[in-house]
């Protein structure tokens, strides 16, 4: 009986899925057809034929004077921390990953963190927070295909990530999504602990952005997220509120 129900259920889902795929295929066909008239109508309003080659773009990117601007590494770290703190974030510079680990362990104890989720990154595996924080439940993103990972991130007190890039001038972290790096880990927990290996810290936002042009479409992850401080809003009488939807407490730890 139970088996029969299950089979019917599966068949229903399969049929649904097929109908869905068919609908999507129809939509794609329709969209491709419409694309021609939509784009041609733009050309005709612009009063010329549709260009076949890329137009010369002489003003691409930032002005030239800006591209030469770069702070030496120590100043870069100082400016990053200054900017990050100015928007309500916490930031510090530590000498080693070992110190960073101790800092996170101490904070977890101080703030009574019970649930911690971390990205599945080698630097974090080496830290072995699972062992150091035996009092808390430490989950490793996407380490078990059966787990509800979004729910694990949503319940977490701490999310721990190693960032992919950082930019000092705007005080921004950049995190990229992958199988081992969930978008939810830097978003859903109450506190975000972000480690910045100093060699990933640049001066300008543009130094990070241009990497994505260089990599090209096929190499880009689904999610690229720049994070510049704790979640905030001033929607009620201009009164600044921290932690509206995203993490309200963010630590940016520069290592090195």
């Amino acid at each position, binding site marked *: 009986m139970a088996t029969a129900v299950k089979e019917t259920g599966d068949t229903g889902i399969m049929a649904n899925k097929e109908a869905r795929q068919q609908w999507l295929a129809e939509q794609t066909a329709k969209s491709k057809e419409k694309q021609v008239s939509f784009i041609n109508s733009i050309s005709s309003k612009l009063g010329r034929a549709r260009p076949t080659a890329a137009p010369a773009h002489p003003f691409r990117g930032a002005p030239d*004077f800006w591209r030469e601007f770069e702070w030496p590494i120590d100043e870069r770290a100082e400016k990053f921390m200054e900017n990050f703190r100015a928007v309500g974030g916490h930031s510090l510079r530590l000498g080693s990953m070992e110190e960073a680990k101790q800092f996170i362990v101490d904070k977890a104890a101080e703030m009574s963190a019970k649930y911690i989720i971390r990205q599945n990154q080698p630097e974090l595996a080496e830290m072995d927070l699972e062992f150091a924080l035996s009092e808390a439940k430490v989950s490793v993103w996407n380490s078990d295909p059966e787990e509800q990972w979004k729910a694990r991130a949503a319940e977490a007190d701490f999310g721990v990530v190693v960032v992919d890039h950082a930019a000092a001038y705007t005080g921004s972290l950049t995190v990229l999504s992958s199988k081992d790096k969930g*978008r939810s880990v830097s978003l859903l927990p109450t506190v975000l602990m972000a480690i910045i290996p100093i060699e990933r810290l640049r001066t300008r936002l543009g130094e990070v952005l241009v990497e994505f042009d260089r990599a090209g*479409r096929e190499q880009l992850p*689904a999610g690229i997220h*720049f994070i510049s401080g704790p979640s905030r809003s001033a929607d009620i009488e201009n*009164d600044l509120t921290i932690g509206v939807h995203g993490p309200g407490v963010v630590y940016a730890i520069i290592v090195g």
Partner: protein
Amino acid sequence: MSGATQTNLGTVKERAGLALNNDFLRKAVKFTTERLRTGKEKAAADHGNWDEWRERGRQIRLHTIAHLDYYLNLFVENARANGVHIHFAETAAEAVEISLAIAKQVEARTVVKSKSMVTEELHLNHALESIDVEAIETDLGEYIIQLAGEAPSHIIIPAIHKNRYQIAELLSADAGETLAPDTQILAGFVRRKLREKFLEADIGMTGCNFAIAETGSMVLFENEGNARMVSTVPKTQITLMGMERIIPSFEDLEVMATLLPRSATGQKLTVYMSGISGPRREVDADGPDEMHIIIVDNGRSLQLGDPEFQELLNCIRCGACLNACPVYRHIGGHAYGGTYSGPIGAVLTPALKKNIAEWDDIANASSLCGACYEACPVKIPLHEMLVYLRRRKLEAGRGDKLEAIGMKGFAAVMKNSKRFGAVLKIGKLGQKLVVRDGGIRSKIGPLKGWNSYRVTPSLPSESFREKWPTMEQEIRHGLQEMDPAVKSRMEAIVRERQSGGNGGKGNGGHGHHG
């Protein structure tokens, strides 16, 4: 947000009458716009070379729009290659139809939305409700005005017109318990409530600040994290995108990221800036399974090839022109009666609708002082467009006859500065007869057409030209007048923020929109 409440409340003049009578609105709008404007000016000055950045931003936008057929097509091809389902909508009705079809396909019961001006334009929430899909605005300010059943009154701070007591009342009704009028408590309630909504919603819906042609990525700027939520948690993502949102590359995004947050809220960068390139990859454990981008025209392409209005498509929706505009600061957003308010709304609304006749009176809701142009990070000559609009209205025979005569007279007088001087002298004498409370209200003589719409300030003992530096000062630095109680409360907030550890100096507008 329901769009239906926002239109057809008579003319701008009548709506402005309503707005001007609402004391809190007027003061709150003034306070907020001044805060945003000061923040913007400081951020621009701190950054330096602001005019060179503006010029660069303008050039990138001009270039992209001049080759929109090429870049939009490139974006579409790349986004499709990323696995995005692309749809084209020439009209608002088509965009709604596509959105509803997707909602039906995925059997959606709830849609969580992050701020999107395009969806306001389409009145999409109402349409979703009509097929029993609950649409929830998740941006704090948008959530508040959705509960109130109102439309946003400012592009960046949508609930600018509500005070904390009104907000506490709305949220208490929503919570089923009394919530204190305390910002932290109110925001805390919304955070908890919306957390559940994010996790159970079937569709996440976003706007789009920029779309990168070369990689097929869409970019969102925001402060709260709700746009990230709606594009990460639900299984299906729908993005509504104006067809002109394109920029060529991530390199170009640096320029936009330099101009947009500084111009909107005075921030160096919004808390979150996300570049999303398609649905989740096969191996990813979060992100949507399915992603749709609906590319919306809805009147935008009417500006293409129009030498006077094509630059409207360069707009990056920062709201700086609202904050700079002396008229907006007096009457607030709702008086404009369209989705977009302020100087940009005064031009964009009739331009998108291509029925200047119906919306003609908002072109008059401007003093043509040019503060909007100076504030614009991509240098759109809005004040000139307002004049073109008035001219077209007159050409279409819809103009006020008296104002037409007034404008001709104005042109004749302005061509000759001696005559201008002479007219001023006559005016100074003549006005003695009609001045009351420092304003001219009578509807007689040469000012009749003009005064039917506004109260003309009496001619000063010094001439306009002599007084220009002072007036400029006022326009640039704000008119000083506010209820002492409101002022002291708001000032206390600012002081607290400056001394307190949790705020820092940044202005925390919530996100931008798309």
